[in-house]
Protein backbone atom coordinates (compact mmCIF):
# COMPACT_ATOMS: atom_id res chain seq x y z
CA UNK A 1 0.00 0.00 0.00
CA UNK A 2 1.16 3.49 -0.89
CA UNK A 3 1.63 5.35 2.39
CA UNK A 4 2.06 8.85 0.93
CA UNK A 5 -0.33 11.75 1.41
CA UNK A 6 -0.10 12.56 -2.27
CA UNK A 7 -2.02 9.51 -3.34
CA UNK A 8 -5.03 10.17 -1.11
CA UNK A 9 -8.36 10.66 -2.79
CA UNK A 10 -9.99 12.11 0.34
CA UNK A 11 -10.80 15.81 0.26
CA UNK A 12 -9.84 16.30 3.89
CA UNK A 13 -10.50 20.07 4.07
CA UNK A 14 -14.02 19.42 2.82
CA UNK A 15 -14.44 16.58 5.32
CA UNK A 16 -13.32 18.84 8.15
CA UNK A 17 -16.03 21.35 7.30
CA UNK A 18 -18.62 18.63 7.99
CA UNK A 19 -17.49 18.25 11.61
CA UNK A 20 -18.66 21.21 13.68
CA UNK A 21 -16.66 20.19 16.75
CA UNK A 22 -13.38 20.78 14.94
CA UNK A 23 -14.07 24.52 15.27
CA UNK A 24 -14.12 24.10 19.01
CA UNK A 25 -11.58 25.85 21.25
CA UNK A 26 -10.74 24.06 24.50
CA UNK A 27 -9.50 27.30 26.02
CA UNK A 28 -9.75 30.79 24.54
CA UNK A 29 -7.43 30.73 21.51
CA UNK A 30 -6.62 27.02 21.88
CA UNK A 31 -8.10 24.99 19.02
CA UNK A 32 -9.10 21.38 19.59
CA UNK A 33 -6.80 18.71 18.14
CA UNK A 34 -8.86 15.56 18.53
CA UNK A 35 -6.67 12.46 18.59
CA UNK A 36 -8.90 10.20 20.67
CA UNK A 37 -10.72 8.50 17.82
CA UNK A 38 -10.18 4.95 19.01
CA UNK A 39 -12.30 5.85 22.05
CA UNK A 40 -15.04 7.48 20.00
CA UNK A 41 -15.20 9.39 16.73
CA UNK A 42 -16.66 12.81 16.09
CA UNK A 43 -19.90 13.15 14.10
CA UNK A 44 -20.53 14.98 10.83
CA UNK A 45 -23.48 17.39 10.51
CA UNK A 46 -25.17 14.88 8.24
CA UNK A 47 -25.50 12.44 11.13
CA UNK A 48 -26.38 15.06 13.74
CA UNK A 49 -29.02 16.60 11.52
CA UNK A 50 -30.57 13.28 10.57
CA UNK A 51 -31.32 12.59 14.22
CA UNK A 52 -32.38 16.14 14.92
CA UNK A 53 -34.75 15.99 11.99
CA UNK A 54 -36.10 12.64 13.10
CA UNK A 55 -37.10 14.12 16.45
CA UNK A 56 -38.54 17.28 14.89
CA UNK A 57 -40.58 15.69 12.11
CA UNK A 58 -40.98 11.95 12.37
CA UNK A 59 -40.54 10.71 15.93
CA UNK A 60 -42.70 7.69 16.70
CA UNK A 61 -42.49 4.20 18.02
CA UNK A 62 -42.09 1.70 15.21
CA UNK A 63 -43.08 -1.70 13.82
CA UNK A 64 -46.56 -1.87 15.26
CA UNK A 65 -47.85 1.55 14.30
CA UNK A 66 -50.24 2.29 11.47
CA UNK A 67 -50.20 6.06 11.57
CA UNK A 68 -48.11 8.18 9.28
CA UNK A 69 -45.27 8.91 11.73
CA UNK A 70 -44.95 5.27 12.74
CA UNK A 71 -44.70 4.21 9.12
CA UNK A 72 -42.11 6.84 8.24
CA UNK A 73 -40.04 6.05 11.33
CA UNK A 74 -40.17 2.31 10.68
CA UNK A 75 -38.99 2.72 7.11
CA UNK A 76 -36.19 5.12 8.10
CA UNK A 77 -34.97 2.88 10.91
CA UNK A 78 -35.08 -0.28 8.81
CA UNK A 79 -33.29 1.56 5.99
CA UNK A 80 -30.47 2.12 8.46
CA UNK A 81 -30.28 -1.61 8.99
CA UNK A 82 -30.20 -2.31 5.25
CA UNK A 83 -27.42 0.21 4.73
CA UNK A 84 -25.32 -1.44 7.43
CA UNK A 85 -25.98 -4.89 5.98
CA UNK A 86 -24.71 -3.78 2.60
CA UNK A 87 -21.77 -1.84 4.11
CA UNK A 88 -20.31 -5.03 5.58
CA UNK A 89 -21.42 -7.31 2.76
CA UNK A 90 -23.99 -9.31 4.73
CA UNK A 91 -26.21 -11.62 2.71
CA UNK A 92 -29.40 -10.24 4.22
CA UNK A 93 -30.62 -7.45 6.49
CA UNK A 94 -31.97 -10.22 8.70
CA UNK A 95 -28.40 -10.93 9.77
CA UNK A 96 -28.04 -7.46 11.34
CA UNK A 97 -29.09 -7.26 15.00
CA UNK A 98 -29.11 -3.85 16.67
CA UNK A 99 -27.58 -3.78 20.16
CA UNK A 100 -26.29 -0.94 22.38
CA UNK A 101 -22.62 -1.38 21.51
CA UNK A 102 -19.88 -3.90 20.76
CA UNK A 103 -19.89 -4.94 24.39
CA UNK A 104 -23.56 -5.87 24.42
CA UNK A 105 -23.15 -7.75 21.14
CA UNK A 106 -20.42 -9.90 22.69
CA UNK A 107 -22.48 -10.50 25.82
CA UNK A 108 -25.49 -11.46 23.70
CA UNK A 109 -23.29 -14.11 22.07
CA UNK A 110 -21.95 -15.31 25.41
CA UNK A 111 -25.44 -15.60 26.94
CA UNK A 112 -27.30 -16.95 23.94
CA UNK A 113 -24.83 -18.83 21.73
CA UNK A 114 -22.46 -19.64 24.57
CA UNK A 115 -24.93 -21.09 27.04
CA UNK A 116 -26.67 -23.09 24.30
CA UNK A 117 -23.53 -24.50 22.70
CA UNK A 118 -20.82 -24.83 25.34
CA UNK A 119 -20.48 -27.21 28.25
CA UNK A 120 -17.97 -27.86 31.00
CA UNK A 121 -14.60 -28.81 29.60
CA UNK A 122 -15.05 -26.94 26.30
CA UNK A 123 -12.40 -24.36 25.37
CA UNK A 124 -12.64 -20.82 24.07
CA UNK A 125 -9.66 -19.26 22.31
CA UNK A 126 -9.06 -15.52 22.76
CA UNK A 127 -5.92 -13.40 22.42
CA UNK A 128 -3.84 -11.25 24.72
CA UNK A 129 -4.67 -8.16 22.69
CA UNK A 130 -8.42 -8.31 23.31
CA UNK A 131 -10.42 -5.43 24.68
CA UNK A 132 -11.96 -6.19 28.10
CA UNK A 133 -15.31 -6.51 26.35
CA UNK A 134 -14.02 -9.58 24.52
CA UNK A 135 -12.61 -11.10 27.71
CA UNK A 136 -14.94 -10.49 30.64
CA UNK A 137 -18.12 -11.99 29.08
CA UNK A 138 -16.15 -15.19 28.46
CA UNK A 139 -14.69 -15.16 31.96
CA UNK A 140 -18.22 -14.88 33.33
CA UNK A 141 -19.30 -17.76 31.09
CA UNK A 142 -16.25 -19.75 32.15
CA UNK A 143 -17.06 -19.48 35.82
CA UNK A 144 -20.72 -20.29 35.20
CA UNK A 145 -20.44 -23.16 32.74
CA UNK A 146 -16.94 -24.40 33.41
CA UNK A 147 -15.35 -23.72 30.02
CA UNK A 148 -11.62 -22.95 29.82
CA UNK A 149 -10.11 -19.87 28.19
CA UNK A 150 -6.86 -19.89 26.22
CA UNK A 151 -5.08 -16.79 25.04
CA UNK A 152 -2.95 -16.46 21.91
CA UNK A 153 0.22 -14.68 22.97
CA UNK A 154 1.90 -11.69 21.29
CA UNK A 155 5.18 -11.19 19.51
CA UNK A 156 7.57 -8.49 20.68
CA UNK A 157 6.29 -6.40 17.81
CA UNK A 158 2.76 -6.67 19.14
CA UNK A 159 1.38 -9.03 16.55
CA UNK A 160 -0.48 -12.24 17.29
CA UNK A 161 1.99 -15.09 17.57
CA UNK A 162 0.71 -17.34 14.78
CA UNK A 163 2.61 -20.30 16.15
CA UNK A 164 0.85 -19.91 19.47
CA UNK A 165 -2.44 -19.66 17.56
CA UNK A 166 -1.84 -22.91 15.68
CA UNK A 167 -0.81 -24.71 18.84
CA UNK A 168 -3.83 -23.53 20.79
CA UNK A 169 -6.15 -24.51 17.94
CA UNK A 170 -4.95 -28.07 18.44
CA UNK A 171 -6.82 -28.03 21.74
CA UNK A 172 -9.97 -27.87 19.59
CA UNK A 173 -11.71 -24.80 20.97
CA UNK A 174 -15.42 -24.64 20.19
CA UNK A 175 -15.15 -20.88 19.80
CA UNK A 176 -12.42 -18.49 18.62
CA UNK A 177 -13.03 -14.81 19.28
CA UNK A 178 -10.52 -12.11 18.42
CA UNK A 179 -10.18 -8.53 17.31
CA UNK A 180 -9.58 -7.52 13.73
CA UNK A 181 -7.62 -4.52 14.96
CA UNK A 182 -6.16 -3.94 18.41
CA UNK A 183 -7.25 -0.72 20.11
CA UNK A 184 -3.92 -0.48 21.93
CA UNK A 185 -1.33 -1.74 19.45
CA UNK A 186 -3.15 -0.92 16.22
CA UNK A 187 -2.24 -4.38 14.93
CA UNK A 188 -4.43 -5.55 12.05
CA UNK A 189 -4.86 -9.30 12.23
CA UNK A 190 -5.17 -11.63 9.20
CA UNK A 191 -8.82 -12.45 9.79
CA UNK A 192 -9.53 -14.46 6.64
CA UNK A 193 -6.60 -16.84 7.16
CA UNK A 194 -7.14 -17.20 10.89
CA UNK A 195 -10.85 -17.82 10.37
CA UNK A 196 -10.18 -20.53 7.83
CA UNK A 197 -7.76 -22.19 10.23
CA UNK A 198 -10.29 -21.96 13.06
CA UNK A 199 -13.04 -23.44 10.91
CA UNK A 200 -10.77 -26.31 9.95
CA UNK A 201 -10.25 -26.91 13.66
CA UNK A 202 -14.02 -27.02 14.08
CA UNK A 203 -14.51 -23.68 15.86
CA UNK A 204 -17.08 -20.95 15.41
CA UNK A 205 -15.46 -17.53 14.84
CA UNK A 206 -16.41 -14.15 16.31
CA UNK A 207 -14.61 -11.04 15.07
CA UNK A 208 -14.46 -7.92 17.23
CA UNK A 209 -14.53 -5.31 14.49
CA UNK A 210 -14.99 -2.27 16.75
CA UNK A 211 -11.73 -0.79 15.45
CA UNK A 212 -11.69 -2.20 11.93
CA UNK A 213 -15.11 -1.57 10.36
CA UNK A 214 -14.72 2.20 10.97
CA UNK A 215 -11.34 2.36 9.26
CA UNK A 216 -10.99 -0.19 6.46
CA UNK A 217 -13.02 -2.24 3.98
CA UNK A 218 -14.61 -5.20 5.74
CA UNK A 219 -16.73 -7.82 3.99
CA UNK A 220 -18.11 -10.55 6.23
CA UNK A 221 -18.65 -12.97 3.38
CA UNK A 222 -15.15 -12.53 1.97
CA UNK A 223 -13.67 -12.96 5.43
CA UNK A 224 -15.87 -15.98 6.02
CA UNK A 225 -16.57 -15.14 9.66
CA UNK A 226 -19.56 -16.43 11.63
CA UNK A 227 -20.22 -13.40 13.84
CA UNK A 228 -18.95 -9.83 13.80
CA UNK A 229 -19.55 -7.02 16.30
CA UNK A 230 -19.00 -3.25 16.22
CA UNK A 231 -20.29 0.10 17.55
CA UNK A 232 -21.74 3.13 15.74
CA UNK A 233 -20.03 5.68 17.96
CA UNK A 234 -16.58 4.79 16.67
CA UNK A 235 -17.61 5.27 13.03
CA UNK A 236 -19.24 8.71 12.87
CA UNK A 237 -22.51 7.42 14.32
CA UNK A 238 -24.32 8.12 17.58
CA UNK A 239 -23.82 6.63 21.01
CA UNK A 240 -26.27 3.97 22.16
CA UNK A 241 -26.26 1.64 19.17
CA UNK A 242 -24.10 -1.23 17.99
CA UNK A 243 -24.28 -4.26 15.75
CA UNK A 244 -24.22 -7.99 16.02
CA UNK A 245 -23.80 -9.55 12.61
CA UNK A 246 -24.34 -13.31 12.47
CA UNK A 247 -24.83 -15.83 9.72
CA UNK A 248 -28.54 -16.55 9.42
CA UNK A 249 -28.25 -20.28 10.14
CA UNK A 250 -26.43 -19.57 13.38
CA UNK A 251 -28.72 -16.77 14.53
CA UNK A 252 -31.74 -18.88 13.72
CA UNK A 253 -30.66 -21.69 16.01
CA UNK A 254 -29.80 -19.44 18.94
CA UNK A 255 -32.23 -18.97 21.83
CA UNK A 256 -33.40 -15.41 22.50
CA UNK A 257 -31.41 -13.17 24.83
CA UNK A 258 -33.71 -10.45 26.21
CA UNK A 259 -37.44 -11.08 26.45
CA UNK A 260 -40.23 -8.55 25.97
CA UNK A 261 -42.04 -6.44 23.40
CA UNK A 262 -41.04 -6.78 19.73
CA UNK A 263 -39.07 -10.02 20.12
CA UNK A 264 -42.24 -12.07 20.34
CA UNK A 265 -45.00 -12.99 17.93
CA UNK A 266 -47.50 -13.86 20.59
CA UNK A 267 -47.70 -13.98 24.39
CA UNK A 268 -50.00 -16.00 26.59
CA UNK A 269 -49.87 -16.41 30.31
CA UNK A 270 -48.31 -19.83 29.83
CA UNK A 271 -45.72 -19.05 27.16
CA UNK A 272 -44.63 -17.06 24.12
CA UNK A 273 -43.75 -17.56 20.45
CA UNK A 274 -40.58 -15.95 19.14
CA UNK A 275 -40.45 -13.43 16.33
CA UNK A 276 -38.41 -13.79 13.11
CA UNK A 277 -34.83 -12.60 12.68
CA UNK A 278 -33.49 -10.14 13.60
CA UNK A 279 -36.37 -9.07 15.87
CA UNK A 280 -36.01 -12.18 17.99
CA UNK A 281 -32.97 -10.49 19.51
CA UNK A 282 -34.40 -6.96 19.80
CA UNK A 283 -36.59 -6.59 22.85
CA UNK A 284 -38.38 -3.38 23.74
CA UNK A 285 -38.39 -0.02 22.04
CA UNK A 286 -35.14 0.13 20.10
CA UNK A 287 -32.71 3.02 19.64
CA UNK A 288 -34.72 4.45 16.75
CA UNK A 289 -33.09 7.85 16.24
CA UNK A 290 -29.73 6.14 16.65
CA UNK A 291 -30.48 3.55 13.96
CA UNK A 292 -31.32 6.37 11.57
CA UNK A 293 -28.15 8.26 12.53
CA UNK A 294 -26.09 5.12 12.11
CA UNK A 295 -27.46 4.69 8.59
CA UNK A 296 -26.35 8.25 7.75
CA UNK A 297 -22.89 7.56 9.15
CA UNK A 298 -22.52 4.49 6.97
CA UNK A 299 -23.64 6.50 3.93
CA UNK A 300 -20.98 9.08 4.72
CA UNK A 301 -18.21 6.49 4.94
CA UNK A 302 -19.43 4.58 1.88
CA UNK A 303 -19.34 7.83 -0.09
CA UNK A 304 -15.73 8.40 0.85
CA UNK A 305 -14.84 4.79 0.07
CA UNK A 306 -13.28 2.61 2.73
CA UNK A 307 -10.17 1.92 0.65
CA UNK A 308 -9.52 5.66 0.53
CA UNK A 309 -10.18 6.01 4.26
CA UNK A 310 -7.73 3.24 5.03
CA UNK A 311 -5.03 4.53 2.70
CA UNK A 312 -5.22 8.05 4.12
CA UNK A 313 -5.10 6.91 7.73
CA UNK A 314 -2.13 4.70 7.03
CA UNK A 315 -0.30 7.64 5.50
CA UNK A 316 -1.05 9.64 8.66
CA UNK A 317 0.08 6.74 10.83
CA UNK A 318 3.35 6.28 8.93
CA UNK A 319 4.07 9.98 9.24
CA UNK A 320 3.21 10.04 12.94
CA UNK A 321 5.38 7.00 13.66
CA UNK A 322 8.30 8.64 11.89
CA UNK A 323 7.89 11.86 13.82
CA UNK A 324 7.41 10.10 17.18
CA UNK A 325 10.65 8.24 16.69
CA UNK A 326 12.45 11.57 16.61
CA UNK A 327 11.36 12.38 20.15
CA UNK A 328 13.90 11.11 22.70
CA UNK A 329 12.36 8.88 25.34
CA UNK A 330 9.23 7.89 23.39
CA UNK A 331 8.56 4.20 22.98
CA UNK A 332 5.68 3.22 20.71
CA UNK A 333 4.06 -0.22 21.05
CA UNK A 334 2.82 -2.27 18.12
CA UNK A 335 3.95 -3.09 14.58
CA UNK A 336 5.15 -0.91 11.70
CA UNK A 337 2.78 1.35 9.79
CA UNK A 338 2.05 -1.22 7.04
CA UNK A 339 0.58 -3.65 9.54
CA UNK A 340 -1.39 -1.35 11.76
CA UNK A 341 -4.28 1.08 11.85
CA UNK A 342 -4.10 4.66 13.11
CA UNK A 343 -3.54 3.90 16.78
CA UNK A 344 -0.29 4.90 18.49
CA UNK A 345 0.18 3.94 22.13
CA UNK A 346 3.41 5.03 23.75
CA UNK A 347 5.26 5.68 26.97
CA UNK A 348 7.50 8.70 27.45
CA UNK A 349 10.48 8.15 29.71
CA UNK A 350 9.02 7.69 33.16
CA UNK A 351 6.52 10.51 32.84
CA UNK A 352 3.12 9.32 33.98
CA UNK A 353 0.57 8.98 31.16
CA UNK A 354 -1.88 11.16 33.09
CA UNK A 355 0.65 13.95 33.13
CA UNK A 356 1.40 13.53 29.43
CA UNK A 357 -2.30 13.63 28.54
CA UNK A 358 -3.04 16.51 30.88
CA UNK A 359 -0.31 18.74 29.55
CA UNK A 360 -1.16 17.90 25.95
CA UNK A 361 -4.74 18.82 26.81
CA UNK A 362 -3.63 22.25 27.90
CA UNK A 363 -2.55 22.75 24.27
CA UNK A 364 -5.90 21.48 23.05
CA UNK A 365 -4.54 18.07 22.10
CA UNK A 366 -6.87 15.25 23.13
CA UNK A 367 -5.15 11.90 23.61
CA UNK A 368 -6.16 9.08 25.90
CA UNK A 369 -4.16 7.90 28.94
CA UNK A 370 -4.59 4.60 30.71
CA UNK A 371 -4.96 0.95 29.84
CA UNK A 372 -7.60 1.58 27.14
CA UNK A 373 -9.56 -1.42 28.43
CA UNK A 374 -6.73 -3.64 27.27
CA UNK A 375 -4.99 -4.49 30.52
CA UNK A 376 -3.78 -7.93 29.40
CA UNK A 377 -1.94 -6.38 26.43
CA UNK A 378 -0.33 -3.87 28.78
CA UNK A 379 0.55 -6.65 31.20
CA UNK A 380 2.17 -8.52 28.33
CA UNK A 381 4.56 -5.60 27.87
CA UNK A 382 4.85 -5.17 31.63
CA UNK A 383 3.42 -1.67 31.75
CA UNK A 384 0.44 -0.16 33.57
CA UNK A 385 -0.65 2.39 31.05
CA UNK A 386 0.16 4.20 27.82
CA UNK A 387 -0.72 7.48 26.17
CA UNK A 388 -2.62 6.87 22.96
CA UNK A 389 -3.08 9.06 19.90
CA UNK A 390 -5.54 7.72 17.32
CA UNK A 391 -6.65 9.11 13.98
CA UNK A 392 -9.64 9.41 11.74
CA UNK A 393 -10.56 10.87 8.37
CA UNK A 394 -10.53 14.49 9.54
CA UNK A 395 -7.07 14.47 11.12
CA UNK A 396 -4.24 16.16 9.25
CA UNK A 397 -0.44 16.13 9.14
CA UNK A 398 -0.31 19.48 10.94
CA UNK A 399 -2.09 17.94 13.91
CA UNK A 400 0.60 15.29 14.13
CA UNK A 401 3.14 18.11 14.18
CA UNK A 402 1.23 19.78 17.01
CA UNK A 403 1.29 16.52 18.95
CA UNK A 404 5.06 16.31 18.55
CA UNK A 405 5.48 19.92 19.63
CA UNK A 406 3.27 19.23 22.63
CA UNK A 407 5.42 16.28 23.60
CA UNK A 408 8.51 18.48 23.62
CA UNK A 409 6.68 20.86 25.97
CA UNK A 410 5.86 17.96 28.28
CA UNK A 411 9.56 17.20 28.38
CA UNK A 412 10.37 20.79 29.27
CA UNK A 413 7.98 20.76 32.21
CA UNK A 414 9.07 17.39 33.55
CA UNK A 415 12.72 18.04 32.75
Amino acid at each position, binding site marked *: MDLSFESTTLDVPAIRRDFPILERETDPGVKLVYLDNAATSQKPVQVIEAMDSYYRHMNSNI*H*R*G*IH*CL*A*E*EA*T*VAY*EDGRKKIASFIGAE*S*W*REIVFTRNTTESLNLLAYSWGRANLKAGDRILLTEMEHHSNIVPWQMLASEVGVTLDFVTLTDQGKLDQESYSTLLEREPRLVSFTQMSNMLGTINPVAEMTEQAHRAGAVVIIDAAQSVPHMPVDVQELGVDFMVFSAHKMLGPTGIGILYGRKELLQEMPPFLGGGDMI*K*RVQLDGF*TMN*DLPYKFEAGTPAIAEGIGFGEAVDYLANLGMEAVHQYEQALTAYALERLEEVPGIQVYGPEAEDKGGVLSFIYNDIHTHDVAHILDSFGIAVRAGHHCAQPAHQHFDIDATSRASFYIYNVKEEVDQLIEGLYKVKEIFG
Partner: protein
Amino acid sequence: MDDFYRELIIDRYKNPQMRGELDPHDYSYEDDNPLCGDEIRIDLRVDADGLITEAAFTGKGCAISLASADLLVESIVGKTLDEIKTLSKDDITEMLGIELGPVRLKCALLSLKVLKAGVYGLDELEEELMI
Protein backbone atom coordinates in the same frame (compact mmCIF):
# COMPACT_ATOMS: atom_id res chain seq x y z
CA MET B 1 -59.28 12.05 2.94
CA ASP B 2 -56.78 10.25 0.70
CA ASP B 3 -58.16 7.78 -1.77
CA PHE B 4 -57.01 5.05 0.50
CA TYR B 5 -60.20 3.39 1.44
CA ARG B 6 -61.11 3.44 -2.19
CA GLU B 7 -64.53 2.20 -3.02
CA LEU B 8 -63.03 -1.00 -4.41
CA ILE B 9 -61.58 -1.97 -1.04
CA ILE B 10 -64.63 -1.14 0.99
CA ASP B 11 -66.79 -2.83 -1.62
CA ARG B 12 -64.76 -6.03 -1.67
CA TYR B 13 -64.60 -5.99 2.11
CA LYS B 14 -68.36 -5.69 2.43
CA ASN B 15 -69.24 -7.88 -0.54
CA PRO B 16 -66.51 -10.45 -1.07
CA GLN B 17 -66.78 -12.45 -4.32
CA MET B 18 -64.54 -15.36 -3.43
CA ARG B 19 -65.39 -16.20 0.15
CA GLY B 20 -65.96 -19.83 0.93
CA GLU B 21 -64.41 -23.23 1.44
CA LEU B 22 -63.70 -25.95 -1.11
CA ASP B 23 -64.25 -29.51 -0.03
CA PRO B 24 -62.57 -31.53 -1.38
CA HIS B 25 -59.56 -29.39 -2.34
CA ASP B 26 -56.06 -30.03 -3.66
CA TYR B 27 -54.38 -27.36 -1.58
CA SER B 28 -55.46 -25.70 1.62
CA TYR B 29 -53.35 -23.53 3.86
CA GLU B 30 -53.90 -20.98 6.58
CA ASP B 31 -51.80 -18.52 8.48
CA ASP B 32 -52.25 -15.51 10.70
CA ASN B 33 -50.80 -12.15 11.61
CA PRO B 34 -50.24 -12.41 15.36
CA LEU B 35 -50.00 -8.63 15.66
CA CYS B 36 -53.75 -8.29 15.23
CA GLY B 37 -55.10 -11.82 15.23
CA ASP B 38 -56.01 -11.75 11.53
CA GLU B 39 -56.37 -15.15 9.85
CA ILE B 40 -56.68 -16.20 6.22
CA ARG B 41 -57.27 -19.65 4.77
CA ILE B 42 -57.14 -20.36 1.05
CA ASP B 43 -58.41 -23.53 -0.68
CA LEU B 44 -57.50 -24.49 -4.27
CA ARG B 45 -58.57 -27.06 -6.81
CA VAL B 46 -55.93 -27.78 -9.42
CA ASP B 47 -56.21 -29.87 -12.58
CA ALA B 48 -53.72 -32.36 -14.01
CA ASP B 49 -51.80 -29.61 -15.84
CA GLY B 50 -51.29 -27.57 -12.66
CA LEU B 51 -54.01 -25.13 -13.65
CA ILE B 52 -56.07 -23.62 -10.83
CA THR B 53 -59.69 -24.35 -11.61
CA GLU B 54 -61.31 -23.12 -8.40
CA ALA B 55 -60.23 -21.02 -5.44
CA ALA B 56 -61.82 -19.64 -2.30
CA PHE B 57 -60.83 -18.01 0.98
CA THR B 58 -62.14 -17.63 4.50
CA GLY B 59 -60.81 -15.64 7.41
CA LYS B 60 -61.09 -12.53 9.54
CA GLY B 61 -59.21 -9.30 9.34
CA CYS B 62 -59.20 -5.66 8.37
CA ALA B 63 -60.59 -4.26 5.16
CA ILE B 64 -57.18 -4.28 3.50
CA SER B 65 -56.38 -7.89 4.29
CA LEU B 66 -59.81 -9.22 3.36
CA ALA B 67 -60.14 -7.13 0.20
CA SER B 68 -56.73 -8.18 -1.01
CA ALA B 69 -57.51 -11.82 -0.25
CA ASP B 70 -60.67 -11.53 -2.29
CA LEU B 71 -58.90 -9.82 -5.22
CA LEU B 72 -55.95 -12.21 -5.12
CA VAL B 73 -58.05 -15.35 -5.03
CA GLU B 74 -60.17 -14.07 -7.87
CA SER B 75 -57.10 -13.30 -9.98
CA ILE B 76 -55.52 -16.73 -9.72
CA VAL B 77 -58.34 -18.81 -11.12
CA GLY B 78 -57.18 -19.98 -14.55
CA LYS B 79 -53.50 -19.44 -13.68
CA THR B 80 -50.93 -22.22 -13.26
CA LEU B 81 -49.16 -22.93 -10.01
CA ASP B 82 -45.94 -21.79 -11.69
CA GLU B 83 -47.48 -18.44 -12.42
CA ILE B 84 -48.24 -18.01 -8.75
CA LYS B 85 -44.57 -18.24 -8.00
CA THR B 86 -44.02 -14.99 -9.88
CA LEU B 87 -46.67 -13.01 -7.98
CA SER B 88 -45.09 -10.28 -5.87
CA LYS B 89 -45.88 -7.51 -3.47
CA ASP B 90 -46.30 -5.19 -6.44
CA ASP B 91 -49.06 -7.29 -7.95
CA ILE B 92 -51.07 -6.95 -4.78
CA THR B 93 -50.61 -3.21 -4.37
CA GLU B 94 -51.47 -2.82 -8.04
CA MET B 95 -54.73 -4.71 -7.58
CA LEU B 96 -55.55 -2.54 -4.58
CA GLY B 97 -54.48 0.58 -6.45
CA ILE B 98 -52.84 2.24 -3.43
CA GLU B 99 -49.50 2.83 -1.75
CA LEU B 100 -49.11 1.09 1.61
CA GLY B 101 -46.80 1.61 4.57
CA PRO B 102 -44.95 -1.32 6.12
CA VAL B 103 -47.61 -2.38 8.61
CA ARG B 104 -50.53 -2.15 6.21
CA LEU B 105 -48.44 -3.93 3.59
CA LYS B 106 -48.25 -6.85 5.95
CA CYS B 107 -52.04 -6.91 6.10
CA ALA B 108 -52.28 -6.73 2.32
CA LEU B 109 -49.78 -9.52 1.80
CA LEU B 110 -51.13 -12.00 4.32
CA SER B 111 -53.20 -13.74 1.64
CA LEU B 112 -50.26 -13.90 -0.77
CA LYS B 113 -48.13 -15.35 2.00
CA VAL B 114 -50.75 -17.99 2.71
CA LEU B 115 -51.07 -18.81 -0.98
CA LYS B 116 -47.34 -19.15 -1.57
CA ALA B 117 -46.65 -21.01 1.64
CA GLY B 118 -49.44 -23.43 0.76
CA VAL B 119 -47.95 -24.17 -2.64
CA TYR B 120 -44.21 -23.50 -2.12
CA GLY B 121 -42.04 -22.01 0.62
CA LEU B 122 -42.06 -18.24 1.04
CA ASP B 123 -38.50 -17.26 1.71
CA GLU B 124 -38.19 -14.47 -0.82
CA LEU B 125 -41.46 -12.93 0.14
CA GLU B 126 -40.34 -12.82 3.77
CA GLU B 127 -37.14 -11.08 2.68
CA GLU B 128 -39.14 -8.52 0.75
CA LEU B 129 -41.20 -7.60 3.76
CA MET B 130 -39.26 -5.47 6.15
CA ILE B 131 -41.38 -6.28 9.15
